[in-house]
């Protein structure tokens, strides 16, 4: 099975051909935003980090920003730094492979206005160059699809997540990779996930990951651990934490788990992969995008509208009320399983078909709305 995609030098395929303008440190945000105002076609990425923290967070910053620039959806990148930050713009740009990735430092260029002017010229040139690149036949097996849930309600585990699970199974059947994250939402299912792993070693790895996460939640939140580790909505019908978490992991489908990767690391296998990401949607999606996901499928009950820079996010509403209430933000109505008596496989097929159309160029609601909040996991202290 194929889709029309953008060929990359490393043999990968993008579903988009973006020029990404990214700051290496928050001080560069103003220039990045100014370039974005002058050239609305670029994708701007600004954030609150880049300096003032320890080696672990620095390494995570580098992995996320570098991973995002190396994502197959990015055709070219421009890094804007200040000059005195810990995460140097040139070093970050140097980690990008197989595509143009110049860097500008505001202190070297002669200030923000000069950097903006030079950045606009460079980015305009990159846009021009990428316009000439056409889509070519690409294998669906080259797709990496991140699976996310946010703003879940009592129906998320009834309609949207099982439907996305059906779509995930179809992607895996075509040889693609699907990524399940949000480790906090696996708590209570360690023994179940262990059984679903392709090898005993993977099983032990997953069990350690989930149990470790549970310990960390208890240690960090103490008596408030119940906020994270609860059956969820007892009034809504959930009887145990296992049931609640199963309702989340069901979006990953039924195929065996073939790999476990750290936050923001690239999967190396086809099939269902677990990535250690937090439950917080924005940080979780950053992990997927940095890991090379070209597409994210995101279920929501209450109505999360977040997309992600450079990566199309397909929104699947769990209920018709949210879908009808927020018509410009939801792509698929899984509530139709209830209202229109459709099957889980029906809606799963709709999600799969739409995802392929999105891969081929059709824009998601979040892309049209330019709703792409950016942030990523930072765990250590700030100095």
């Amino acid at each position: 099975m194929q889709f029309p995609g953008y060929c990359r030098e490393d043999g990968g395929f993008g579903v988009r051909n973006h020029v990404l303008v990214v700051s290496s440190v928050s001080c560069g945000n103003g220039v990045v935003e100014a370039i974005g105002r002058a050239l609305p076609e670029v994708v701007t990425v600004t954030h609150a980090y880049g300096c003032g923290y320890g080696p672990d967070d620095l390494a995570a910053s580098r992995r996320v920003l570098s991973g995002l620039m190396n994502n197959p959806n990015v055709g070219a990148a421009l890094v804007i730094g200040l000059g005195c930050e810990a995460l140097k713009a040139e070093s970050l740009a140097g980690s990008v492979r197989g595509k143009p990735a110049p860097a500008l430092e505001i202190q070297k260029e002669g200030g923000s206005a000069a950097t903006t002017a030079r950045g606009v010229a460079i980015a305009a040139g990159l846009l021009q160059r990428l316009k000439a690149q056409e889509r070519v036949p690409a294998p669906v097996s080259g797709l990496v699809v991140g699976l996310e849930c946010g703003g879940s309600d009592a129906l998320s585990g009834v309609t949207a997540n099982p439907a996305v699970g059906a779509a995930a199974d179809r992607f895996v059947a075509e040889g693609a990779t699907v990524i399940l994250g949000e480790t906090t939402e696996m708590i209570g299912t360690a023994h179940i996930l262990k059984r679903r792993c392709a090898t005993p070693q993977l099983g032990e790895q997953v069990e350690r990951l989930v149990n470790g996460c549970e310990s960390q939640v208890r240690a960090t939140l103490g008596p408030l651990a119940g906020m994270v580790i609860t059956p969820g909505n007892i009034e809504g019908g959930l009887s145990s934490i296992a049931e609640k978490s199963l309702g989340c992991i069901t979006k990953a489908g039924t195929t065996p788990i073939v790999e476990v990767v750290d936050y923001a690391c690239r999967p190396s296998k086809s099939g269902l992969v677990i990535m250690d990401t937090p439950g917080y949607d924005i940080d979780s999606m950053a992990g997927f995008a940095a890991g090379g996901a070209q597409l994210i499928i995101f279920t929501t009950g209450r109505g999360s509208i977040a997309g992600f820079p450079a990566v199309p996010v397909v929104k699947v509403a769990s209920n018709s009320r949210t879908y009808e209430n927020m018509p410009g933000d939801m792509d698929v109505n899984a509530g139709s399983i209830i209202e229109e008596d459709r099957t889980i496989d029906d809606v799963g097929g709709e999600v799969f078909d739409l995802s392929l159309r999105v891969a081929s160029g059709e824009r998601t609601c979040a892309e049209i709305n330019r709703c792409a909040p950016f942030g990523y996991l930072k765990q250590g202290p700030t100095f």
Partner: protein
Amino acid sequence: MKSNALRIDSRDNVVIATQPIGKGEAVVVNGDAVCHTVEDIALGHKVALAPIPSGDAVFRYGEPIVQATRDIGRGEWVHVHNTQPVPGDLRE
């Protein structure tokens, strides 16, 4: 018949009400009546497809989610009043 409940996996011994189901009404999954309720079932809640003896697992998503703390009859509401988390599910 219009469905009023959903079954996720063929191993499941409960189905989920996709709208409130009144006492004595038919539980309809994929257009077929699978049983009748013996009590009201609220939207999103579970109803037993077959008897679940005390101590047996309740399956949803093809996995054990809780175990029965007493004998549960066909058509009964299944929730925290007649089940408990499977011992050993959580690290504590």
